[in-house]
């Protein structure tokens, strides 16, 4: 400490401070840190750990489905395995993945801020997450949970095992999510660097803002619903179980009122990362800044009005079905706009296919499939056929797993030098990206065909006619696993080397690249001032003040 004070007294020369990784030592300094970067890293390692847990479960599930009938486990174990896979991946990996891990690390840096608005709340959010995660995993010793991650009543209110614990875990995890959302909204409103107006915000911040809106508005509804479910299970208060006078479809309405917007908690941050990576590696200003920014907000708001498209076969009125289908189609438009904007950004750029960009391009292709296959499920007549088949499984994996995970990897490779001050092996990272892309498509493409031919989801046993496609899918899962482990290995291997990354290895124009790699605890030696736009790649960037005066908007 004393040494640091002396160094500080020496003035603000670059390198005068130890970076945030080395500024203090010991486990406690990490566990009690309020530094957004350290909290981001703790989230990151937790997410990686749970991704391995969820991924191994996925491999077991795919292994079981290699043959019809029993392969390696019995039906009850299988049901518990896919439930835990879903719950872990949704609540512990995808929802916190980009916002809490990468968002925490990058958002304040992108804004030119010292930290998030409420650093202690940030730490609280992390420990609530850890507590919720332990609760969720404790169901393994409480007899498991076999409801599916959707907890549909009255199955969930009558089956045995640790359903109440799992549901309470999701309740607790919700608070972590809300705290992060509140924090990000306050940070984006109040902590922007001098000179940074709303339309000079990096698009990552717009994406985080839209995500945070959903987190704070939708998560409480899930919390209430889950508490009602626990009340029904423990106190036999009849809410959803018809035997107690409840309505089972009501649960689905409540559940999807949160969980459909939650899908956008998963995809908006992914889009946010892609909006950062593509301009940098195309060395060209983003095309249609406002269109991308507003389409994020549009998706977030429309996302609240479409929940019942999960229930077209559940017994809704014709009129309700038509309304929900109609609104759902409007989400397709902002999604399409974004994809075309990203491609237009690449057009006439100077494209460098480094690992983050490879992942970003893979994202564009996978999201194109994931997005367009959504049309089948938004349309009423086709959804009736496809609902609860493997087609749906394939579709949501393309969006939630493929798009989200690959965008997470794009962001991770992009900010890795900033996080750890080290470059990874570019060639191996590119090979890993290719394996992930091939493995992902090999796993999930056959599932579309299986589903359209009628294979229902959550089936332990299946008819022989589906076996070929199940085998292809299982082989795909092995390729995907090899790719992901290679990717992790390449990144971890880089940590053994010296800190060799420059402050701005990719030539980015957003503020985080003005900080050292890795940054000091307070991010910047001096408060950065926003001079030119976040994507101004002109040889002589035009100051934002001048652009505003000239009325030149993005």
């Amino acid at each position, binding site marked *: 400490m004393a040494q640091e004070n002396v160094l500080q007294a020496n003035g603000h020369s670059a390198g005068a401070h130890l970076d945030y990784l080395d500024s203090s030592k010991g486990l406690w300094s990490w566990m009690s840190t309020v530094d957004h970067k350290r909290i981001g890293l703790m989230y990151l390692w937790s997410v990686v750990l749970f991704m391995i847990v969820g991924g191994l479960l996925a491999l077991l599930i795919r292994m079981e489905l290699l043959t019809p009938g029993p392969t390696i486990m019995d*039906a009850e174990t299988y049901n518990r395995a896919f439930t835990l896979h879903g719950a872990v991946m949704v609540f512990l990996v995808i929802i916190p993945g980009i916002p809490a891990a990468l968002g925490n690390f990058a958002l304040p840096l992108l804004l030119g801020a010292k930290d998030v608005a409420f650093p202690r709340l940030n730490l609280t959010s992390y420990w609530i997450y850890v507590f919720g995660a332990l609760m969720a995993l404790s169901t393994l010793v409480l007899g498991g949970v076999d409801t599916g991650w959707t907890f549909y009543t009255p199955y969930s209110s009558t089956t045995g095992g640790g359903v109440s614990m799992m549901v309470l875990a999701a309740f607790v995890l919700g608070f972590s999510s809300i705290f992060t959302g509140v924090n990000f909204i306050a940070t984006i409103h109040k902590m922007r660097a001098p000179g940074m107006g709303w339309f000079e915000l990096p698009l990552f911040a717009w994406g985080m803002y839209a995500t945070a809106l959903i987190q704070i508005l939708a998560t409480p509804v899930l919390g209430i619903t889950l508490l009602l479910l626990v009340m029904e299970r423990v106190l036999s208060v009849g809410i959803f179980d018809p035997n107690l006078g409840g309505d089972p479809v009501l649960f689905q309405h409540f559940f999807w009122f949160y969980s459909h917007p939650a899908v956008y908690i998963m995809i908006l941050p992914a889009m946010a990362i892609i909006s950062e990576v593509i301009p940098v590696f195309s060395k*060209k200003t983003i095309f249609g800044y406002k269109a991308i920014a507003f389409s994020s907000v549009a998706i977030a708001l429309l996302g609240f009005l479409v929940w019942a498209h999960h229930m077209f076969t559940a017994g809704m009125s014709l009129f309700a079905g038509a309304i929900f289908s109609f609104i759902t*189609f409007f989400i397709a438009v902002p999604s399409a706009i974004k994809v075309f904007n990203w491609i237009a950004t690449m057009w006439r750029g100077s494209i460098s296919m480094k690992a983050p960009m490879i992942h970003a391009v893979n994202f564009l292709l996978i999201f194109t*499939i994931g997005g367009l296959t959504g049309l089948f499920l938004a349309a009423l007549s*086709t959804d009736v056929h496809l609902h609860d088949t493997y087609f749906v499984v394939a579709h949501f994996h393309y969006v939630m797993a493929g798009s989200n995970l690959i965008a997470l990897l794009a962001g991770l490779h992009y900010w890795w030098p900033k996080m750890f001050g080290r470059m990874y092996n570019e060639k191996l990272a590119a090979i890993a990206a290719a394996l992930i892309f091939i493995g992902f498509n090999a796993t999930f493409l056959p599932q579309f065909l299986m589903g359209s031919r009628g294979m229902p989801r959550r089936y332990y046993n299946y008819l022989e006619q589906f076996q070929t496609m199940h085998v292809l899918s299982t082989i795909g899962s092995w390729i995907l696993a090899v790719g992901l482990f290679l990717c992790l290995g390449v990144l971890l291997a880089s940590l053994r080397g010296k800190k060799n990354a420059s402050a701005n290895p990719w030539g980015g124009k957003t503020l985080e690249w003005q900080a050292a790699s890795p940054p000091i605890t307070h991010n910047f030696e001096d408060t950065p001032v926003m001079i030119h736009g976040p994507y101004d790649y002109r040889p002589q960037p035009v100051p934002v003040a001048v652009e505003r005066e000239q009325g030149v908007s993005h």
Partner: protein
Amino acid sequence: MTWFRDFLLGSPAATHAAEMDGLFIFITLLTVFFFLFNGALIFYASKRWKRRSDDEVTPHITHDTRLELIWSLIPLAVVLLIFFWGFKGYVSAWVAPNDAMEIVVTGKKWLWEFEYPDGTRALNDLHVPVNKPVKLIMHAEDVIHSFFVPAFRLKRDVLPGRYTEMWFTATEPGVHQVYCTEYCGKGHSDMLARIYVDTPEEYEVFLREGDEQVRKMPLKDLGQLVYENKGCATCHSIDGTRGQGPTFKGIWGKTERAADGKEFLVDENYIRESILYPNAVVVQGYEPIMPTFQGLLREREILGMIEYIKSLQ
């Protein structure tokens, strides 16, 4: 296009299917087209404008309103078209015609029970006539199930404490697979049923003799099924208790006295007569209140009833 449709969806077997199949193929082609289109643009851009040196200068293009309008409005038009197309198919599958034959479907862990208009019940095998509208009135006994017939492109959740409906006109004779598509526990993936779409001749045989299950059932078991399902149990006990009618226990081979005092033997002919013309000869001390079962029981079911009563000694 037929091979493409059969490859994607399997061949259709109900009147609704064509509408949905057309839309499915349309969106499939749209998806393939945009995937290739986007893929080609990305591939072209990354080759054509590959970075060759670090100080390359790129044009500063912030937006292009005309282009952006085009790629907003075209997707909008396409999705609206898809919406209406999907809605049309959904509506046509919504309201059943008035003359549809009604079948009650009960889903429970982990089997499907079907009840025909004549009161016959069957497990997991449903017989329907070809080219006749059929309406299923469905409910569940325990948790939510879902009745899915891929060949008909139809699916409907089956809920406890509520009725849901589904109707179809099957066009292809043959056997069509039914799946449960709402997760319902350990036996979910074995909760399968089959719909037998019968030609008029086959359906005649089915109406006369029942389905294969029934045809193969030993007479005594069939009789017990009739006793339980057709309301006999309401008045006739099998344990000797007196009900609205005489108990079946030990009645076989007994000599009974009729209301007018005449004696008669309870044999095959008496039982048959009592089922078809119940009030011809009534046992003394009982009211002539039994309804006739003419036309409600198949010939083999009457034989089954006789065998069943024989067995209750």
